[in-house]
C-alpha cells in the first residue's frame, strides 16, 4: 500500500521503455483515440461487380433450389432419432414418438458392396431396435424376478384378452404397463389433454352426471 505512491512524483509520463524505440517520434501527432468499438466489417473501397443474371442464371438458380428441396424428401436425408422438443415433458417417457426418419423405405440396392462393409449388422431401423430392446428387457426381468414375472404374465394375459387389435399400440401399452419403469398409473394418466374435446360438437346444455 505504501509503495504504490512511489512513482507518482518522479516526472510526467515516466514509462519503463523509451517512446522513440516504439516508433513515435518526439512531438509527432499521435492517431486520435478511438471512442467506439471498431466496425464489424472493414470498409470496402471498391464495390463488387453486380451479379450476371441472365436467363441461364435464373434457370440454374431455380434448379439449385429445387434440388435442395427434393433432397430433403428423399430417404437419404438422415434425421436424428430424437426430435428436439421445446420443453421437456414428463409424459415423454411414456409416449412413443414416431420415428421421424424415412430411411426405412430405402435399402441399399447394391447388395454386393453392402455385404462387404464388414462390421455391419443387417440393416436395422429405429423401431426394430427399440422393440427388440423391449423384448430383451422383458426377458431380463423374467430371469431375475421369478415370482413377479408370474404375476406379470398373468396380468399381461388378462390384458390380451381384454384389449383388441391395433397390435403395436396395444403392445406398447401393455409393455409399458407395469414393466417399463414400473409405474402404477395407466397410460391415460400421462395424456396431456391435447387430443381431448375433439368431438364435442353438440350443444352442452345438458349437464353430465
Amino acid at each position, binding site marked *: 500500500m505504501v509503495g504504490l505512491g512511489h512513482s507518482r512524483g518522479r516526472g510526467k509520463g515516466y514509462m519503463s521503455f523509451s517512446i522513440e524505440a516504439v516508433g513515435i517520434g518526439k512531438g509527432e501527432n499521435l492517431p486520435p483515440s478511438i471512442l467506439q468499438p471498431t466496425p464489424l466489417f472493414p470498409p470496402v*473501397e*471498391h464495390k*463488387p*461487380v453486380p*451479379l*450476371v*443474371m441472365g436467363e*441461364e*442464371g*435464373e*434457370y*440454374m*438458380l431455380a*434448379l*439449385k*433450389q429445387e*434440388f*435442395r428441396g*427434393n*433432397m430433403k424428401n*428423399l430417404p*437419404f*436425408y*438422415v*434425421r*436424428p*432419432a430424437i426430435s428436439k422438443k421445446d420443453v421437456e415433458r414428463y409424459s415423454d417417457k411414456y409416449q412413443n414418438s414416431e420415428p421421424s*426418419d424415412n*430411411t426405412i423405405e430405402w435399402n*441399399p*440396392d*447394391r447388395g*454386393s*458392396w*453392402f*455385404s*462387404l*462393409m*464388414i*462390421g*455391419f*449388422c443387417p*440393416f*436395422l*431401423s*429405429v423401431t426394430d*431396435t427399440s422393440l427388440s430392446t423391449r423384448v430383451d428387457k422383458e426377458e431380463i426381468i423374467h430371469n431375475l424376478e421369478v415370482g413377479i414375472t408370474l404375476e406379470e404374465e398373468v396380468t399381461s394375459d388378462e390384458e390380451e384378452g381384454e384389449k383388441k387389435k391395433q397390435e403395436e399400440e396395444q403392445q406398447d401399452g401393455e409393455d409399458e404397463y407395469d414393466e417399463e419403469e414400473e409405474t402404477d398409473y395407466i397410460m391415460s394418466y400421462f395424456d396431456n389433454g391435447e387430443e381431448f374435446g375433439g368431438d364435442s360438437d353438440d350443444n352442452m346444455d345438458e349437464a353430465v352426471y
Partner: protein
Amino acid sequence: MTAQEVRLCGLLLQEHFGEVVERIGTHLLRGGAQNLRTIANETNTPLDLVKKSLCVLVQHGACDFGSGRRGPGSPVEYRASCERVLRVLRYPRYIYTAKTLYGDTGELIVEEVLQRGHMTMSNTVKTVADRLTHNMEEGRSMEYSEVVSAFSKLVETHFLQRCPPVAEMGTAATSTTPATPSTPAAPASTAPPTAESNPDCYKLPHVTLIGRGKRRRSSDDSEEQRGGKKAKMDSESCGDEGIYWLVNFERFHQHFRDQAIISAVASKLDQTSSEIVRTMLRMSEVTTTQTAAYTQPLSANEIFRSLPPNYSISRPILDQYLSLLVDDPMEFVGKSGDSGGGMYVVNLQRALANLARATLESVVQERFGSRSARIFRLLLRKRHLEQKQVEDFAMIPAKEAKDMLYTLLSENLVQLQEIPKTPDHAPSRTFYLYTVNQLPTARLLLQHCYKTVANLIERRLFETKENKRLLEKSQRIEAILASLQASGAEPEQLTEVEEMITAPERQQLEALRHHINKLDSTENQVDETVFLLESYIFSTKTK
C-alpha cells in the same frame, strides 16, 4: 483437405443430407481412414445412425471403403473424398448442360441420377417417364423408348458411365487361411478401382423396356398405393440388376473447359475463329485423354472438311484464320507440323493457364483498383522487379506505388525475394525483388473462393433461421389456400385467408426471398471461378 474445404464440405453435406451425415462426413474428412467403431465412439453417435450415414455417403460416391491398415483381418476402413463432396456445388451446372445438349429428357435423367447417387437404367427410365408424363397435358404420356434413346445418347457421349465393380477384397478377408507375410497382398485391394478401368464402362445393357409413363393423381391415393405395390412386383427383372450408372463428372468438366476456351477465343478474336476452335475440339473429343496438354494434331484439310455447313469459308481464308490463331499471344492454337496443309493442335494446358491468369488479374483489379492491377500484370510478365523498376515501368508515382505494393504484399498476392550481396545479409546491401508466382497465387485464390461459398451458405442459413417464423406462417397459409381452392371456396374466403399475412410481412417475405436468391446465384457464379482455378491447378499437377 484444407480447413476451408472441410468447412464447405460440412455445409454442403448438412444442406443435402442432414446433420447426422454432416457430422460423420466431417469427422471422416478430418481424420482420414477410420473404421466403424472409431467413428461411432469419436462422434458419440449411435451405431445405427453411423451405418445409415455411411450408406448414404457410399451411395453418393463420397465415401470409399477398403480393408484396414493392419492387413486383411482388420476391420473395414472408410475414407471420405473431399473433392467429390465439393462437386455438389456444381450440380445445377451439370443439369443445365444436359438440358442444353439433350433437352428436357436428358436434363431429368441427369437430375435423377445425381439425386440418387447411382441408379439402374430401368429405374431411371421409369422415374423420368413418370415425371415427364406428370408435366404433360391430360391424356398424353411419355414413351419409355424415347427416354431410353436419350439415356443411350448420354452413355455414348460418355456423360454417364457404369459404376466400377466392387473390389474383391471380401474374399481375402473372409478366407479361412490366414495370410502369411510372404504372400503378396491381393492386387485388387490396394487401390479402389475407378470407373474407367472397367472395359464395359460405356456398354449399354440389353434391356427391353416397353411401356409408357404413369400419371400420378393426388386424388386417388389408395389406387396409387396399390399401383406402387404392383410396380415393385413388376420391377423384377428388366435384365439389368446390378448394373448401376453414375454421372461422369470428368466428361462434363471437359465440356465446360472446351466452352470456356471457345468463348475466350470468341471474345478475343471473332466468331469465326471460335467456330474453328470449336470444330477442332469437337473432332478431338474422343481422342484426347483427360489430362493431355494438347489435343491430337489435326491437319488443315480435316478441319476444312469438318467445319459446320453454315460456316462456308473458303480454304485460303481458313488458312489465314489458323495462322492468326497461332500468332496470337494467348497461344490457344499451335502449329505442330506442315503435312496435310499444316498440322494444328489446341494447347489445352496453355489455354487453361491463360484463363487462370486472366481470372487472377481481374480479381486484383476488382479488389484493389486498376493501378494495382497494372502492377500485378507487370510483375506477372517481368517476373522479378525491384521497387524502383516497378515505379518506372508502371508509370505510377513512387509513394502510391509503394503503398499499392505493400497492400498486395500483405494480401499475399505478391511475394518478396531477397538476394543478398554480402554473406551477412545486411538490409542495405540486399536486393529486394517483388515477384508473382501464378500457381501458388491460384491456390490461394481457390481457398478464398471456398471460404466465400461457405460464408454465403452460412449467411443464407442465418437469414432463413432469422425469419423462420414468418416462413412457416406463409407456408401454412399457402397450404390453406391450396386446400380451399381445391375444394372450391368462394373468392371472399380466399381473400380473407390471404389477408392473414399483413403488408409489412409481405414486404419482409419479398426482401427475404430476394436475398436468398441473390446468395444462391452468387454461389453458382463463384463456382464458375472455382472450376477454372481447379482445372488449372489439376492440369499442372500431372506433368
